[in-house]
Structures are given as structure tokens and as C-alpha cells.
């Protein structure tokens, strides 16, 4: 039997997304003092020209399970990146500051909104987050604003972190123009210039006392991306400090398969994800939808009262087809109308529920147990009706409503939406639901009975082990999370820097 290859580092960071990329950058100055730092990323690193925007090809390369990761009962798809840059390579770049009402509600001892806000603003500047110029706002977005305005709703523009955006609308397939300023474009290259090693195609299997067992995969035949800088095979790594940034599914799963569940009874608990579905409407004439930035506006005024947030969106043929409920002629009719389609993403503000958590199966693979609470279902239903009102106010001729008994609603029935709403039903496994804002599982708190880490990401009772990703969230954030993840990761990095003499 082959002995595993051995490597030794001062600091190992697991994952390269919003959390891992930030920690890598913020600790990279230590390389000048002679410290050895490595980032281990399970996914590949692609060359610029490999971002083609072709749907199945890119989804299969950039997402965990090719974008087909399902919850345990198969009723929801979870989308998260598995590539250099993690999910920051596949988001739309919407950059939101942590909301004060949520951070207050989290009530984590030692975590103040003002501190998080200050750090978040630093990353807004660093990532070039700004309101997109008018020329890149397409009709799909303008119609949303117009519908909201007619109804008296307060649609707001997303700051987005793009530089030189050409409006390809392909953000979720990895920007083919390298415009999006994710960690793959900003923090990781800077960290590497400072001496941090990034090892791609490297999955961490388990963690022991200041050690990690990892496996480097070979580049698959015909696959995209560079081979790993390390030879394929098993590795045993020593590290004085380990920072887990593998995301809200993989970080809790890694700790669970490392046998930490007994000591940390809250590990995996508190998973939330903003479950979402897509509402689609057809207009009489073609609109610009697959040209221009896809997600420029949102409506969050019902986040507290209605438990939903609406965002503009525009997806690709297969994802659109998958997101429409039903099949046959009514489904095809919407697909044939693609150039006339307007889309809105309805996100529910879900809350921590005792059932919803990350566990592992017999092989140590992550399993996400999730049931739709009455509150989340209510949010989705109210969001669907509100979206339909916005569509019709913007002039749509028909709306696809996945929760209605008859999924196609004609404009002549626009006045009956509240009546239609009374007969809507949410049937898991029938209504296509997905989620991309995965949070929780290693919540911050005051001790191991209520949480997994403290407010600066240190795992309770394990001084050398930190978490710095969305799994830290003690409850859902109710907005797009990446800037908040970076702000939390910045706190973790600062703590490590301050305690370095003791940690090493």
C-alpha cells in the first residue's frame, strides 16, 4: 500500500470561495515572515478561455455535482460552486452589506453590526461593487422596476462587483469576460502573489489533531481546467492552524466525518438556504433578457412582513425549463416564448428549524436534511402572488405560477390574483425549488451547547481550528450573503494574526 505524501504548513485553508479567498489574502502578508500557507480547493482552476458560457458544459465543471446536488428527500436542488473561487465564480456579483436588523437578531456575543459593516465596506471597495451603469440595465430589469413603481413598491438596485461587464448575462456559468470580481479575480491572485500556495483538485477527507488527510484527483479526460499542482494521490498534511471555508454543506460534513459531532452537538444544525423558485411571464414583444446584467434589482420591503425577497433573474434554456412547473404544451409554450420572457426569483426568508441540518451518510458524504416550514412556504406563496402582480403591472400577457392549480395565468385574470392565491398549493417534489444561499451548520455562539464556534470562528475547545464561511451564520441572512461572509472571514483572519505567537 502506498504511503501518503507528506506536507507541512503553518496555516492550511480549506476552500477558496468568499471565506477562503478572504482568509488567504488577509493572512498572505505572513508569507513574507516565512510562514507557509496553503489553500486546498476541491475544484479545478480554469483558464480564461475555458469559460465558454455553454450551459451544461459549464454547470458540469463549476458546480458541486454538476449543479444537481439534491436535499435528502430530493425536493430541492442546492447550487454551490466547486472551483477556484468557489461560489464567487458563479454568483451574479450582487454585493449587499450585512443588514443591521439581522445581525442584531443573531445576538452573537462579541459580534457587533458596526464592526461587520466596517469590514464589509472594505470589501465592497476592494471588489469594485457599484451600481451598474444604465446601458447595462436590460428590459427584463426595467420591467421589474416599472411594475414595482406602478404598484407603489420600492424596487432597489443591487450594487454589483463587476469591472468591464459586457452584459453577457452568463454570470452563473462563470463570467466569460472575467468582469466579475470574485475571489478568483481579486483575493486569491493577490494571496498567491504574496506566496500562498493554492492546490486545486484537492479534497480534504478528514481532520485530526493539527493534521489533515487529503486526496488530489487527476484531471478527468476531456475535462476543463489545469491539472492540480500536486501529483494525484493521498496526502497527509501537518498544519499548526486550520481554517475551514468549504461552505455550509461541506464544512459541517468535514467536521462530522472527522468525528467531532459528539463534542459539538450543534454541528450541522441550523441550516438555512433561502429556498427559491422562478416566476416567469410572457410579454407581447421581445424584450432584452439574455443580453445585459441578469440581476440588477430587488425588492426586500416584504422581508419582515411577508418573509420573502424578490430579485430579477435570467437563466439559461435548461435551467429555465427545469424551473417551470409541469410539462407538455403549456410548458413548451413558455419555452418557445423565450425572447419575450421576464423572470423574477422568489426567495423565502427561512428560519432555523430543528429538522433542517447537514449530516453525513455511511461514506462520509454530506446529506442535507431539509423540510419546507410553513413560514418558508408562506413566503414563497406570497412572493409568487406579488411577482404575478408586478408582471401584469409591467404589461405581461401571461404568467407562469408554479404553485397555482393551473400554472398559466392570463392577463384577463390579473384582477383575480388574490382569489387564485387562495387556491394555490405548495407540493414538495412537484414545485421546482432550488437554493444558492446556503448558510449555517457551524453557527457562532457562546458555547458548545448552543453553537460550534465563537464569534471569531474558533471551534469551541479546539484552539487551532477555525471556520470562516457561511456555515458560521446562526440564522438566515435574508440577503445575498457573500459580502457578509467576507466580513466574517476578515474577523477570523485578524484573530489568527493577533494570536499567531501562541498558535505557532
Amino acid at each position, binding site marked *: 500500500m502506498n504511503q501518503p505524501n507528506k506536507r507541512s504548513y503553518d496555516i492550511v485553508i480549506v476552500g477558496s470561495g468568499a471565506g477562503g479567498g478572504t482568509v488567504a489574502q488577509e493572512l498572505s502578508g505572513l508569507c513574507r515572515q516565512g510562514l507557509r500557507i496553503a489553500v486546498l480547493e476541491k475544484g479545478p482552476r480554469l483558464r480564461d478561455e475555458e*469559460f*465558454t*458560457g*455553454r*450551459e*451544461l458544459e459549464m454547470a*458540469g465543471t463549476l458546480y458541486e*455535482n*454538476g449543479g*444537481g446536488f439534491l436535499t435528502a*428527500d*430530493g*425536493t430541492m436542488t442546492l447550487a454551490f460552486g466547486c472551483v477556484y473561487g468557489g461560489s464567487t465564480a458563479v454568483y451574479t456579483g450582487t454585493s449587499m452589506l450585512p443588514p443591521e436588523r439581522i445581525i442584531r437578531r443573531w445576538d452573537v456575543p462579541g459580534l457587533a453590526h458596526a464592526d461587520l459593516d466596517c469590514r464589509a465596506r472594505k470589501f465592497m471597495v476592494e471588489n469594485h461593487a457599484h451600481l451598474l451603469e444604465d*446601458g*447595462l440595465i436590460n428590459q427584463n430589469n426595467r420591467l421589474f422596476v416599472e411594475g414595482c413603481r406602478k404598484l407603489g413598491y420600492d424596487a432597489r438596485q443591487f450594487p454589483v462587483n463587476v469591472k468591464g*461587464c*459586457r*452584459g*453577457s*448575462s*452568463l454570470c452563473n456559468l462563470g463570467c*466569460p*469576460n472575467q468582469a466579475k470580481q470574485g475571489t478568483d479575480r481579486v483575493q486569491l491572485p493577490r494571496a498567491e502573489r504574496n506566496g500562498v500556495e493554492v492546490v486545486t483538485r484537492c479534497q480534504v477527507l478528514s481532520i485530526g489533531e493539527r493534521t489533515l488527510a487529503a486526496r488530489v484527483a487527476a484531471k478527468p479526460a476531456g475535462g476543463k481546467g489545469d491539472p492540480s499542482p500536486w501529483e494525484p494521490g493521498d496526502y497527509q498534511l501537518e498544519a499548526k492552524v486550520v481554517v475551514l471555508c468549504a461552505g455550509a454543506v461541506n464544512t459541517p460534513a468535514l467536521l462530522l466525518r472527522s468525528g467531532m459531532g459528539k463534542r459539538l452537538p450543534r454541528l450541522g444544525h441550523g441550516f438555512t438556504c433561502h429556498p427559491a423558485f422562478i416566476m416567469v411571464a410572457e410579454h407581447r414583444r*421581445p424584450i432584452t433578457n*439574455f*443580453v*445585459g446584467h441578469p440581476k440588477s434589482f430587488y425588492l426586500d420591503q416584504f422581508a419582515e412582513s411577508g418573509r420573502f425577497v424578490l430579485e430579477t433573474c435570467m437563466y*439559461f*434554456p*435548461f435551467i*429555465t*425549463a*427545469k424551473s417551470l412547473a*409541469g*410539462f*407538455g*404544451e403549456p*410548458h*413548451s409554450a413558455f*419555452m*418557445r416564448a*423565450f*425572447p419575450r420572457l421576464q423572470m423574477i426569483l422568489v426567495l423565502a426568508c427561512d428560519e432555523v428549524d430543528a429538522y433542517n441540518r447537514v449530516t453525513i451518510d455511511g461514506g462520509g458524504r454530506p446529506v442535507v436534511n431539509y423540510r419546507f416550514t410553513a413560514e418558508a412556504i408562506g413566503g414563497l406563496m406570497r412572493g409568487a402572488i406579488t411577482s404575478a402582480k408586478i408582471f401584469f403591472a409591467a404589461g405581461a400577457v401571461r404568467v407562469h405560477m408554479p404553485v397555482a392549480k393551473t400554472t398559466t395565468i392570463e392577463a384577463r385574470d390579473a384582477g383575480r390574483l388574490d382569489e387564485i392565491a387562495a387556491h394555490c398549493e405548495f*407540493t*414538495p*417534489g*412537484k414545485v*421546482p425549488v432550488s437554493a444558492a444561499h446556503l448558510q449555517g451548520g457551524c453557527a457562532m455562539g457562546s458555547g458548545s451547547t448552543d453553537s460550534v464556534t465563537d464569534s471569531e470562528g474558533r471551534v469551541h475547545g479546539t484552539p487551532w481550528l477555525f471556520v470562516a464561511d457561511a456555515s458560521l451564520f446562526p440564522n438566515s441572512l435574508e440577503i445575498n450573503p457573500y459580502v457578509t461572509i467576507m466580513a466574517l472571514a476578515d474577523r477570523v483572519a485578524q484573530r489568527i494574526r493577533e494570536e499567531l505567537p501562541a498558535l505557532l
Partner: protein
Amino acid sequence: MRTDAAIFRAVASTIVPEAAALDDQGWRDLELVVEGLLRARPASLAGQLRLFLQLIQWLPLLRYGRPFTSLDQAARTSVLTHLQNDRIQKIRVGFWGLRTIVLAGYYGRPAAARAIGYAASPQGCETPT
């Protein structure tokens, strides 16, 4: 395997009626996409899919006295609608999975994207019109 292919094509043409008009090359392209997706997933999924196709093929015997592939389009739609709305969640999820694979096979082809007028490109706003 040939029977499985016939059932799959009958199901696919019910989920996406336009699939019925595909020529041999179109079906080969669709099935290549499906095979690629299944190869990237655990082998057990392909087995479950075959089992579900068999369920769809023989379930209509109870109501129509004929297998799925011998039914007209309206009856096929009715059978699949029942599965989609079944009170057992596992059945609904099984149908949803099959439907997803069919939609990936059909709409994952560049020809289908062109046919519905989808023309996103990396050039975005600079695309010549």
C-alpha cells in the same frame, strides 16, 4: 435496452412535445446529453431511472389495458400528470428527476436553444444584431 429507449422517447415526447419531431441525429444528441449526465452521477441513479421507466411503461395496464408506449398523447399526458401529482412524495420526486433529465437532454442541445430564440453570447451587449 432497446425497449428502455422506446419508453424513454415516448416519455420525452410527452414532456417536450417538440421532441416528437426530432430526427435520428436529434435523438442521438439528446440521448448523448442524458448519457453524459448519468455518467457523472452515481451508477445507482441510472438503475433507478430504468426502474422508473418500467413503472411508467406498465402502470397504464391497470387503467388503459395497454403499456405507455401504445397510448395516444392525451393518455400519456394523463399518466404522467398522475405521477407528477401523486400523493406519495417519492413518486413525485422520481418523476421530477426523470423530467429534469429529459429537459436537460432536450434543452441542453444548442439546436434547441436556437429554436427557442435563445442567443446569449460572451459578447453580450456588443453582439451584432
